[in-house]
């Protein structure tokens, strides 16, 4: 079955092609467009499930070896027939060490190439003789797909979550004029994303990478008639270009270093390079840096995160699919895919971890003060991506991918929930105009609650498992120093996350129904945008002046004002009902108009096409985390065999201490039997990798090889020691300290679990206190922390800073170049033209008087003599001139072969 994986990306592409190319011409109805799009993705999902099952659990299961479709001829062709490349190996000796074995192998390869091709391609036109290059490889880029533990997770997440979002979008985009266009873009995006994760080499990844960038651009700018959408799309595109530049450089570097783009080849070759400890910035670090810049751009890390919040200008399903669940995790995919390269550089691991932690914190602090529901979710996404990078930086690539998966579930769920709210509120996104929606949209509310609990990290929900593992790994890592500091930042950010997510839920679903008040006065938007603030202020003032007044006083006041203005509560209700009917999703025309009006509206529950995907995602958000259940709950082992995502993904990760890829954990949960079957794992490597720490008396920490096996290897080497696989001391290690003081591995893990749960609980409690119990508190604290509040509210002025630093500079440069062009170059041209004109006036005079005089004089003289002859030759007929040319040709032939022709004439 996994031979058919090449069909998976093609199905969404086919759907997109049909919708995009024929949708307008054949005037497809929304039903047809939706059916085509949803069915194509559903088929792809089913195919993906079948392929992954067949790959991992079927009778011909290949797990954990990567399956590349070109291996058995299932699919693949030579996409870019390259040629002999010269490698940089050995060029810069000293920067890194090249072993004699590697050199000999490269030379052997070069000889092979020379015999394989007969003639090196360079000789095709020059006719040079084949000469073997000293160091070369045959660069062939093939188009084939790879199925391995990593890509299988991504395939399932992309198609599965994508299917939910497609279904949701059929409801959400209902009545939109560009329905077919939307689904064509979305299908194209699915195709590109699948190419990105399924390609078997860096070139294909780059194609997908740029492709999803393009689709993101198209979809952010979907409402292209709105300026901010257009601006946001361009911002996203340009910011991503910065990252892509780094990525492209890294790919070039990889080609130059390894002579191949195929993952399997590159990773195998990279394994042999020496690791670079902190402070040494060699080849591997440079490659990793380029890749990391690319990942920063796509996954919205500092300093390239600025595009993601603006990208919320796109339709909400797009935000859910592209800017939360899939595309922004492409950076994580790349990091994990190239973890061999990253793990070769301790410096870059530290950089990844620090950038991740900082991004998480930074975005979370911004998210606290935003009022646009989608903006809050966007900053939350950036923050969660930061968590994932933190995981990767601490060596826990597997946990990073686990968080990608759970995050895809709960963040897609929350975005779709927000979309449902926005839909129900008739395209209102400002949370200050919401509130109390629990009563109006119960299904959306309950599903949203699941997502809320998941992202806050409450215990059985999916977000808890992955986030807790990330924090535990940050605390326990020995790959990089200052893990405990990263853990502290992460835990604080987790609390912040819980706080602002509670704020979002409170402002949207709980409390009083502010939209009634907001819309009572009519259309004056700006005045009412701050209704919430004013409301709180008045409330505040009132409680200050008369502290014993009941808290619901403002409600009454609002109610009265409302009645006064509209002339009776019953009337309001009638009007609301009218509008509700008017905005019934089944009434296409009315709905199309309803999207833009800000009349007095009563929110309505969304149609089934929207809440069913919500329900599915909610279930996933609740139970999705159990595939990676923490070993602390299961007696210190990752149970479930391959069904456990940690065991499933582990063979993808390279281990810097054993200098090999991790050995797979067989079929049985935590069994080591499969290790023996692995031909590549040397016995001592296994012993080092999984050897039980002598000091630990807990059950089986050896089985707890959670993508940071270095931890345990190091523990085994010297109990409680901090030496990293890079051979240097990583300093104080919080987890080891906890282990030694609590006397056990699992106990320490439980401690951290409790701490992270406490942090989440505190965050949620504070959120509840601020936004439900005492609504005047936020304002009070905003005033108290005025500077901080303003900084956060204005997103730390990063956009303005970038505008000042880069945008303005670029504009200035462009203006400068324009000035140079218009003044300098045009001036030079015009000046030289003027000069030429002046000179030509003089020379013209000279020409007319002296030269012409001489010529005329001589011509007159000669003309009388030879003109009759020449005039006869110059007939002016083309044929005559051609005849003379042929005559010349004859003369030439006769000249070159005169001897032979004479021989012919004379009879040899």
């Amino acid at each position, binding site marked *: 079955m996994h031979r058919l994986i090449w069909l998976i990306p093609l199905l969404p592409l086919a759907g997109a092609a049909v919708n995009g190319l024929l949708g307008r011409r054949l005037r497809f109805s929304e039903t047809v467009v939706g059916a085509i799009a949803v069915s194509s993705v559903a088929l792809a999902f089913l195919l993906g499930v079948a392929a992954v099952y067949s790959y991992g659990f079927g009778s011909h299961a290949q797990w954990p070896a990567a399956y590349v479709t070109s291996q058995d001829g299932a699919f693949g062709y030579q996409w870019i027939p390259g040629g002999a490349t010269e490698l940089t190996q050995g060029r810069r000796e000293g920067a890194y060490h090249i072993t004699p074995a590697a050199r000999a192998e490269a030379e052997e390869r070069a000889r092979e190439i020379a015999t394989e091709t007969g003639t090196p391609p360079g000789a095709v036109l020059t006719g040079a003789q084949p000469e073997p290059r000293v160091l070369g490889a045959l660069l062939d880029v093939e188009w084939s797909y790879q199925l391995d533990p990593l890509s299988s997770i991504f395939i399932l997440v992309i198609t599965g979550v994508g299917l939910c979002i497609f279904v949701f979008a059929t409801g959400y985009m209902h009545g939109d004029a560009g329905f077919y266009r939307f689904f064509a873009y979305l299908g194209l995006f699915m195709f590109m994303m699948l190419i990105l994760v399924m390609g078997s080499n860096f070139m294909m990844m780059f194609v997908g990478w740029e492709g999803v960038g393009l689709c993101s651009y198209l979809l952010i700018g979907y409402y292209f008639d709105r300026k901010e959408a257009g601006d946001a799309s361009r911002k996203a595109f340009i910011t991503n270009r910065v990252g892509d530049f780094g990525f492209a450089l890294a790919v070039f570097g990889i080609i130059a270093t390894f002579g191949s783009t195929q993952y399997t080849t590159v990773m195998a070759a990279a394994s042999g390079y020496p690791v670079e400890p902190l402070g040494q910035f060699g080849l591997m670090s440079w490659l990793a840096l380029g890749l990391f810049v690319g990942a920063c751009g796509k996954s919205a890390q500092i300093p390239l995160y600025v595009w993601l919040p603006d990208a919320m200008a796109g339709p909400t399903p797009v935000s859910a699919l592209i800017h939360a669940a899939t595309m922004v995790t492409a950076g994580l995919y790349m990091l994990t895919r190239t973890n061999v390269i990253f793990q070769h550089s301790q410096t870059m691991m530290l950089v990844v971890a620090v950038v991740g932690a900082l991004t998480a914190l930074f975005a979370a602090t911004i998210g606290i003060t935003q009022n646009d529901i989608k903006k809050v979710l966007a900053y939350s996404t950036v923050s969660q991506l930061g968590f994932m990078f933190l995981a990767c930086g601490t060596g826990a690539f597997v946990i990073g991918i686990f968080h990608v998966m759970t995050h895809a579930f709960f963040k897609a769920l929350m975005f779709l929930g927000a979309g449902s709210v926005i839909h129900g509120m008739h395209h209102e996104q400002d949370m200050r105009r919401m509130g109390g929606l629990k009563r109006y949209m119960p299904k959306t509310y309950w599903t949203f609650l699941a997502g809320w609990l998941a992202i806050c990290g409450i215990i059985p929900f999916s977000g808890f498992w992955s986030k807790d593992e990330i924090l535990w790994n940050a605390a326990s890592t020995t790959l990089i120093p200052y893990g405990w500091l990263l853990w502290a930042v992460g835990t604080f950010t987790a609390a912040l996350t819980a706080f602002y997510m509670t704020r979002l839920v409170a402002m949207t679903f709980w409390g009083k129904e502010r939209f009634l008040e907001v819309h009572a006065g009519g259309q004056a938007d700006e005045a009412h945008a701050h209704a919430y603030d004013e409301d709180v202020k008045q409330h505040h003032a009132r409680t200050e002046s008369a502290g014993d007044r009941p808290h619901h006083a403002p409600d009454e006041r609002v109610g009265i004002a409302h009645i006064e203005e509209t002339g009776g509560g019953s009337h309001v209700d009638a009007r609301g009902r009218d509008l509700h009917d008017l905005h019934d999703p089944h009434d296409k025309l009315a709905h199309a108009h309803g999207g833009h009006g800000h009349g007095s509206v009563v929110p309505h529950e969304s149609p089934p096409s929207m809440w069913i995907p919500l329900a599915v995602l909610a279930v996933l958000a609740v139970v999705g985390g159990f595939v990676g259940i923490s070993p602390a709950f299961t007696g210190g082992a990752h149970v479930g065999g391959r069904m456990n995502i940690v065991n499933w993904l582990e063979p993808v990760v390279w281990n810097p201490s054993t200098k090999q890829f991790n050995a797979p954990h067989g079929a049985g949960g935590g069994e080591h039997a499969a290790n023996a079957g692995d031909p590549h794992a040397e016995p001592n490597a296994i012993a080092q990798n999984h050897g039980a720490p002598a000091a630990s008396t807990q059950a089986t920490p050896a089985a707890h090889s959670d993508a940071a096996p270095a931890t345990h290897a190091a523990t085994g080497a010297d109990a409680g020691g901090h030496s990293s696989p890079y051979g240097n001391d990583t300093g104080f290690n919080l987890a080891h300290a906890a282990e030694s003081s609590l006397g056990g591995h699992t106990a320490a893990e439980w401690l951290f679990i409790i701490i992270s749960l406490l942090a989440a609980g505190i965050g949620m409690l504070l959120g509840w206190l601020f936004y439900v119990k005492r609504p005047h508190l936020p304002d009070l604290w905003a005033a108290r922390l005025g500077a901080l509040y303003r900084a956060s509210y204005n997103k730390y002025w990063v956009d303005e800073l970038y505008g000042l630093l880069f945008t303005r500079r670029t504009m200035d440069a462009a203006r400068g170049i324009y000035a140079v062009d218009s003044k300098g170059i045009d001036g030079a041209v015009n000046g030289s033209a003027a000069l030429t004109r002046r000179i030509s006036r003089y020379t013209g005079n000279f020409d007319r008087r002296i030269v012409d005089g001489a010529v005329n004089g001589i011509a007159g003289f000669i003309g009388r003599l030879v003109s009759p002859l020449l005039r006869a030759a110059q007939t002016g007929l083309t044929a005559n001139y051609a005849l003379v040319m*042929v005559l010349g040709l004859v003369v030439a*032939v006769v000249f070159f072969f005169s001897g032979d022709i004479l021989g012919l004439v004379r009879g040899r």
Partner: protein
Amino acid sequence: MTLSGWEAAFFWVFAIAALVAALLTILAHNAVHSALFLISTLVSVAALFVLLGAEFIAGVQILVYVGGVMVLFLFVIMLVNVGAEERGGETLFNRPAQVATSAVFLVLLSLGFIYAIRQGYEGLLIRDNLITPEQRAEVANRRRAQQQNLRPAATGTSRLSEDTQLVGASLYRFAALPFEIASVLLLVAIIGSVMLARTARQEAATGDLELKDEG
């Protein structure tokens, strides 16, 4: 390099067809007939290309020449009135003296060419004989192996696609600059033909020509 068997037969068929059609091209009274004979010549030459293993070029020849250039010719013939020649009212050739002179020189030229080809080819044969038969057999084997060892794939590859890939790779890798220059040439040709074929009124509209007042 020799052709044999059916290839040889086809060679003679197409070679003679090409020559006869070429002769008829320059002898036909009607320009449309000329164009049609020229098409036959081009198709026959394309067939010779196929015999020589240049299928891609043959395809290009058919597409560009027959499909593009010759259609252009027919359009122009349609646009300019050649009725007089068609009716036989005009002489076909230039002045008799010129035709006679041309014929003499052309006979000389063709004899010279054919003789030169014979001489040159003997030189090539001598050069070829410097290669031992073993070496020649090895070349043939390599060529066969190259064609047989194509990787199987779902999309399917053949010698044809491999050769075409080779041409494409050479075009883009070694002849990239001429390739770009050729594109500029085509652009110039487009602009030039548009500029040339304008009517007086069109030229006047762009200010390139001052149209005289028509009364």
